[in-house]
């Protein structure tokens, strides 16, 4: 299926969970977070949350900053 990931249309496995997606992207748990369709997803829900076709996902992480 296709989702919008950080602004780009991206093909991902159907019914992939948020946690699985983050693992796929080798995203460190510590320092990262996710927004799905405008809602910040609590850390505890990452594994349980199954993404759906067309959802808008923002994956962010801590970077050097002011």
């Amino acid at each position: 299926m296709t989702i919008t990931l950080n602004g780009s249309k991206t093909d991902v496995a159907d019914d992939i969970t948020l946690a699985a997606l983050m693992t796929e992207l080798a995203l460190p748990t510590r320092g990262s977070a996710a927004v799905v369709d405008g809602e910040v997803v609590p850390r505890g829900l990452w594994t349980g949350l199954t993404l759906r076709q067309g959802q808008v996902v923002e994956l962010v992480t801590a970077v050097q900053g002011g």
Partner: protein
Amino acid sequence: MGDPFVIAGIELESRLILGTGGAPSLHVIEETLRASGTSLCTVAMRRVDAATSGSIIDVIDRTGVRVLPNTAGCRTAREAVQTAALAREALQTDWVKLEVVADERTLLPDPLELLEAAQTLVARGFHVLPYTNDDPVLARRLQQAGCVAVMPLGSPIGTGLGIANPHNIELIVSEAEVPVILDAGIGTASDAALAMELGCAGVLLASAVTRAQDPVAMATAMARAVEAGRLARLAGRIPKRFHAQPSSPTEGMAVL
């Protein structure tokens, strides 16, 4: 030295807070964190970038410094509140350096959006450290909103112009009930010392260190300067005098 620096009930060893932006490498950041002896440093939240090698968080964890996520780049209260929520999930901290700027040219805070964001975040249980301008009235409003510190600028971010209006900083300090942290505009060590002499409880700086020709040496300089300024504030400086006053005895001159 019996002069603890406490924010939101947490005592910090150092009164110097370091921003990590603008450094040439993670390696330099790690060295500056160590050289500065800081207990708290800021990070920004950005989209995952495959290109990024290594993680600032690993560096920070390695140095044992507490992390303070910021909302840099946000222009509205809404964005800032969302970014703070994201940072809380990402870093498991309620602390946030709240930045809501009005434009790219001045990077000055938008007073209305800033105050609104502060009120919302406090209501959601955050410990808010707002980056604000040097207006004593806005600083007061932010304290009334429940911020755990106020962080007035010395001059605009990255300018290195130092403390443009010491009078305002003194006014803010004179009525503050939370720590006042001088944030932005510091260019060199004497600026940091002056901030402390004006009564600030701490100094937050990034570019002055990360963009110096020798960031690590400047980190050490800033650590010393903040200590020097704090000690001088507590030691009670001599008053300024228009006329001279001798420091050697005027009596007992030999006739030669």
